[in-house]
């Protein structure tokens, strides 16, 4: 063979920073990154508070602490119970949507599903009067709430399973339906036209030691049960398989439609149950804002915990903790709601943002490499190579992951991960 001129060119350049996927990271290391993120976030917020409202950073932190744990023994008892109660309610809604999320069914209708459950529980009390003994009344309230939650959740599920409609839009719309249905019922139930129902006379769950304790224990029990269900039961396993790959599910003979509907039934039932508890243990009434956006906050909780019920306890606590602290900030410094919201936003941003550093590795080019020209367009074409092989892609991704420990050194860098960003950059 004769030798050819190998042309050198500078069409594509290696960028200053490139990003590769991180394979596994030991637990302690990822924990450290997360802790560092929270610490940096608080630090940043203290500085911001000094610059914007003139609070000294120590005072800022103290206010945050006081907001959650009280300034003295008497106050602390009240706020700590409130902290626990709010955490429990948020956690319960997060738990309710988690089975659906693990199936990659993006149910953002928890707000409506909980609300309609609460309404159903109230309706039972409103219409039954004094007909039933307490225990029977509770049972009917519970059943009605659960049934209402299921109805609200299963309608979108059926449409998804049969016609593959978009569950996100559908469940979102069901929220509005629930809100306005509650508004309608309130008008109907209040002849004076105030639309304010007031406290129900019956249907208050008994207090065991503390009015919130029954609720908190129930939610903890649900957390444990759901954890076992998702990780150790056959149905939980099916949920994971369907969520990961419907093709695999069909291949091993899982009835995907059935799993979707079954899982949403569970999700809706848990939402309904939450609605029942809000009515029977806390509010003893219903308004259009009974859930108050917690159905949406719960989505963040579920995601941040990577759909693990046990981790959700911590995440729900963090969110409620932040809100309480921020509220305290608002009252103490008289800065209204905007600044506390900013603080919460900054902290959550850091907590979620640090996941990037856990999942990916950032390589910074030390100096301009001499012959780093060839890497340009590999990634773009990888998806198209393989001569029309249907399954080639699957194999490819396996290789990609395996070579995730990419070389940061110069020269020809053929690793797909490295070039993924560059290929499209032009």
């Amino acid at each position, binding site marked *: 063979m004769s030798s050819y001129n190998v042309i050198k060119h500078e069409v594509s350049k290696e960028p200053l920073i490139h990003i590769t996927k991180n394979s596994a990271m030991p637990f302690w290391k990822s924990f450290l990154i997360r802790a560092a993120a929270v610490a940096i976030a608080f630090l940043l917020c203290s500085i911001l508070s000094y610059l914007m409202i003139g609070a000294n950073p120590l005072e800022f932190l103290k206010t945050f602490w006081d907001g959650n744990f009280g300034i003295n023994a008497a106050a602390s008892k009240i706020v700590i119970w409130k902290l626990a109660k709010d955490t429990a309610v948020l956690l319960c809604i997060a738990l309710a949507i988690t089975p659906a999320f693990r199936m990659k069914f993006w149910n953002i209708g928890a707000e409506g599903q909980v609300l309609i459950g609460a309404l159903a529980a109230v309706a039972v009390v409103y219409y039954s009067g004094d007909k039933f003994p307490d225990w029977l009344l509770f049972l009917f309230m519970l059943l009605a709430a659960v049934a209402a939650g299921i109805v609200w959740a299963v309608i979108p599920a059926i449409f998804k399973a049969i016609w593959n409609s978009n569950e996100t839009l559908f469940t979102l719309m069901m929220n509005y339906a629930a809100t306005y249905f509650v508004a309608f019922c309130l008008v109907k139930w209040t002849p004076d036209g105030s639309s304010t129902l007031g406290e129900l006379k019956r249907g208050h769950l008994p207090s065991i030691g503390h009015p919130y304790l029954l609720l908190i224990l129930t939610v903890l029990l649900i957390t444990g049960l759901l954890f076992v269900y998702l990780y150790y039961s*056959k149905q939980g396993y099916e949920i994971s398989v369907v969520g990961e790959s419907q093709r*695999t599910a069909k*291949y091993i003979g899982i*009835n995907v439609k059935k799993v979707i509907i079954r899982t949403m039934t569970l999700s809706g039932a848990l939402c309904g149950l939450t609605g029942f508890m809000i009515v029977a243990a806390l509010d003893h009434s219903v308004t259009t804002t009974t859930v108050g956006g917690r159905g949406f906050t719960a989505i963040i909780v579920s995601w941040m915990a990577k759909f693990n019920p046990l981790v959700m306890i911590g995440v729900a606590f963090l969110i409620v903790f932040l809100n309480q602290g921020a509220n305290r900030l608002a009252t103490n410094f008289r800065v209204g709601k905007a600044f506390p919201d900013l603080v919460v936003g900054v902290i959550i941003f850091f907590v979620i943002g640090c996941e990037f550093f856990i999942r990916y590795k950032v390589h910074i080019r030390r100096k301009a490499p001499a012959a780093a*020209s060839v890497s340009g367009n590999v990634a773009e*074409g990888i998806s198209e190579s393989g*001569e029309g092989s249907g399954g080639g892609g699957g194999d490819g*991704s396996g*290789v990609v992951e395996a070579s995730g420990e990419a070389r940061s050194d110069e020269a020809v860098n053929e690793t797909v991960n490295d070039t993924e960003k560059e290929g499209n950059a032009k």
Partner: protein
Amino acid sequence: MTDPAEKTRDLTENANRPYALELKGVSKAFGSIQANYKVDLQLKHGEILALLGENGSGKTTLMNMVAGIYFPDEGQIFVDGEEVVIGSPRDAYKYKIGMIHQHFKLVDLFSAAENVVLGVNDGSRYSIKEVNERVRQIADRYGFNINPKDKIHEMSVSQKQTVEILKVLYRGAEILILDEPTAVLTPQETEVLFSVLRQMKADGKSIVIITHKLHEVLAISDRVAVLRKGEHIATVNTAESTESSLTEMMVGKKVSLNIDRTEPHDTAERLVVKGLSGHNPEGLKVLDDVSFTAFGGEILGIAGIAGSGQRELLEAVAGIYSPDEGEITYIEPKNGDRVNLRKKTPLQIRELGVRLSFVPEDRLGMGLVGSMDITDNVMLRSYRSGRTILLNRNDPKKLAEDIVRDLEVATPNLRTPVRRLSGGNVQKVLVGREIASAPSVLMAAYPVRGLDINSSYAIYNLLNDQKERGVAVIFVGEDLDVLIELCDRILVINSGRVTGIVDARTTDKETVGFLMTKSDDRPKSDERGGNS
């Protein structure tokens, strides 16, 4: 054979006009796989050149380098005699080169004209009216049946392809590269496409058409360039070639692999397929009256160009794909009971006690769950066992340990998500699981694709082992050398039809290659069934 470079030089000197496109010594490797090695290629002005080769022979990779999607590791590209550097698709358009990819890249909600103009930045003000007009002019010139205002999602597959062609013509391409354009078309649509190509040729465009269908090569091209395993074998005039001469160039000489093969013994009917026909979701016929019998104790190979119906055939047997008509019968080895598998779900098939294992082509997308660990993946087949509502992970864990040990799966531990394993190890986990259920029929689709030599031989040995145990093994492969050395019989499938079942011990590559690619001699059934 003379030195290809020498030949090139002679041709260059003889031609009056430089080549529209010329490649000299172009190579490209992906990791350890050499996709193209020192390829020389010439495209004359106003000709249609067919680029012919088996799956994985490097046709698409080569043309992707011309279109600016890959960059060659070495070699030169000339356009009109001038050396050029093509670093991006934009560069390619600068040299008037346009490629129509196999998978369309269109925005469904946009109209044809909007898709055509997308990404064009010629400095002039954007006016959809003008674009519509220009697109209409181009369409009229070449006889495209298309309305520029129609939305993509309302179009048929062939119309979408037309839009892709319009896209490159709009950008002023003089050199058009079409990557397997007929793979998605019905015979009539193919005819329409060919007449369009002839019109473009008459208009002075130079066209490269990538294909592995011999009759199309003969029907449309002026010259044929044949690639085999990444290397350029020869370029010949179409008029002087026949299907068999092209096949010979495509498949090459026999390579000895030394795979152990024993004579089948105690063979008995295990799976009988009769008259199986079916469509794909696009409405094209993918299985056409397929009949065969698989025997226990032998390996039945299935050969065919990719997408000839192999996947649908195996999925039909496994209960995943539902064919329009035909019979699938399983014969129980113990008592000879005949069980009908047609219209049964995978679960029903298992509940009937049919021990059918299936290693699908798409390992991580179908056979396994990438994010789950080895134990949970091993459990996929068996997780339902037992009456409790909770999972039993003990037995699957033991099985996973066995698979890792016996098949030498390289993994940090059992908790590693299979997605992180290399291709060979992923396949070992999958095959290991499928064999573990003591199957009586084992179907494997491209089980060694992407695997290195050692892993490939490990898989061959596993399949041979199953054959020794009296299992009916069905092996869908793409490497003819492997099929001929590993299998006992080879069924050749061509556009969904069985074109022959040959004895692997006496056949040769040319025969199989010819059956894989020979043109349709039966009356064409081209009506589209199902909904399109």
